[in-house]
């Protein structure tokens, strides 16, 4: 328990950061027209793909002969990239369609 408290104590800065980020997220998202809910969800989905940065760090840490870590890390990088790239491309495709305003007809 003491260790746990120590951990929190040492990471207080991060915890403040965390709380403020939560409030920021709430603030940013409020008052979104329903029309944008799906693209927004999709865009947010792409943003949490930032987890791929963690996968890269894991790979950088891994010893070159630790094949298990390298394999699992490789999988993590692939999946994280899928999340990022796929997420942003899908969102862009959705939003592209909103761009086409009536001008054409």
């Amino acid at each position, binding site marked *: 328990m003491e260790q746990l408290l120590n951990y929190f104590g040492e990471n207080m800065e991060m915890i403040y950061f965390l709380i403020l980020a939560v409030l920021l997220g709430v603030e*940013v998202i409020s008052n979104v027209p329903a029309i944008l809910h799906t693209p927004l969800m999709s865009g947010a989905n792409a943003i949490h793909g930032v987890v791929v940065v963690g996968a890269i760090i894991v790979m*950088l840490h891994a010893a070159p002969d630790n094949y298990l870590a390298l394999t699992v890390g490789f999988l993590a990088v692939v999946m994280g990239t899928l999340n990022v790239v796929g997420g942003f491309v899908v969102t862009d495709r959705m939003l592209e369609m909103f761009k086409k305003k009536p001008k054409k007809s």
Partner: protein
Amino acid sequence: MISLNILEICYLFASLTFVIGLKMLSHPDTARKGNLFAAAGMLVGILATLTLYQTFDPDKMVNYILIGLGLLVGSVIGTVMAKKVKMTAMPQMVSFFNGMGGACAALIAIIEFQHHDPAMVSSLLNGEMLVMLMGLVIGGVSFSGSMVAYGKLEGKIKDKTLPFNQIINNSLFLVIIILIIILMTGQSINNPLFYVLMVLALIYGILFVMPIGGADMPVVISLLNSFTGIAAALGGFLYGNKAMLTGGILVGSAGTILTILMCKAMNRSLLNVLLGAFGGTAGGVGKSADGEQSAREISISDTAVLLSYSQRVVIVPGYGLAVAQAQHSCHELEKLLEEKGVEVSYAIHPVAGRMPGHMNVLLAEADVPYERMQEMEEINPKLSQVDVVVVIGANDVVNPAAKNDPSSPIFGMPILEVDQAKNVIILKRGMAAGYAGIENELFFYPKTRMLFGDAKDSLQKLVGEVKAI
């Protein structure tokens, strides 16, 4: 170290683009730029990690090659999938990508767990362990849950409720908590319980989504989306990585708000959705047609005449429109009617389709102008002046039981009050109940006519008929 400072600045930049990008995504005019902006920040973050996180070590060539390969493979597959997916399949695509992110977070936790070699264990803080375990559990639940949601929306997995599903889920949840506590306080290295925990998290994800009905899937996807965000943030906490922390937490909180907004639109609590109340209790509910009631059909040609000689027509799209891929035919009909001087607009219920905004995306794909899509609050007061409402593949969102039958499971949900209009035409494949499994008395109203058949097929025939008039 100069390079580490530059790295931190890159992360700061990435975090800023996430915040600003998300903000821009919430306004129609800036949304697309916002998305690209966040993507650019992401690219900077990834490149900076690759080049600045540690000085290049020739011994680790294999690692670099594998990272490069991973990024390449992920990018190619991701782009192809995202480009090829049909607009109607968008929700499950988002769910799939979300699952990938969750899996990534869980895998990171697994490697980190193994990384801590025995020599370092004395310095292994319990707090760090907690962060790791939570990353594993939340990432795992998000992965398996998203995959089930994906399968359900693809129609590959049916809704299933195990007997005592709720009790099983709760006990599983309890076991997971106990395991986390054991692992946190335990001293042993590479405790096999860790893998038991992983498997349990995966099972929990499956059981968690399994009983939830198709109509509630968007809520679940949104919730899992915020789960993955939290898992990513936990990873950031582990490494003291601010970009991961901001990105993850932003999505975690934004996703939660979005989930709550969606539940509100259906006038249900999140708990209610998660317990799968529609599927569970709504079995034979409501005034399931008193037997004598019968719906009246209308022919294609009568519909064409009725529409052509109306002044105001409102189209209510639902999931059926997406399934039948009828958005283009629908737009064609709308244009034809406009040429004939009929005022046509679309009434979009906030939870029509499988995701909020699903219908907007779909109609936009067919070039329907933005201004013509009206939200529920906007159009409801005007519905009494409308001559014909055409309901295409929607059901629960126009069910008057939500207003006047307190015993109905959807009672209290705001609906499009189409029964105010002079005529209602319902395009539907058959008399089956909607996703909520509730009889819709609207179908039996005297002013309602049914036009049975595949939505696309009916609309195409209608276009032909209207042209002929």
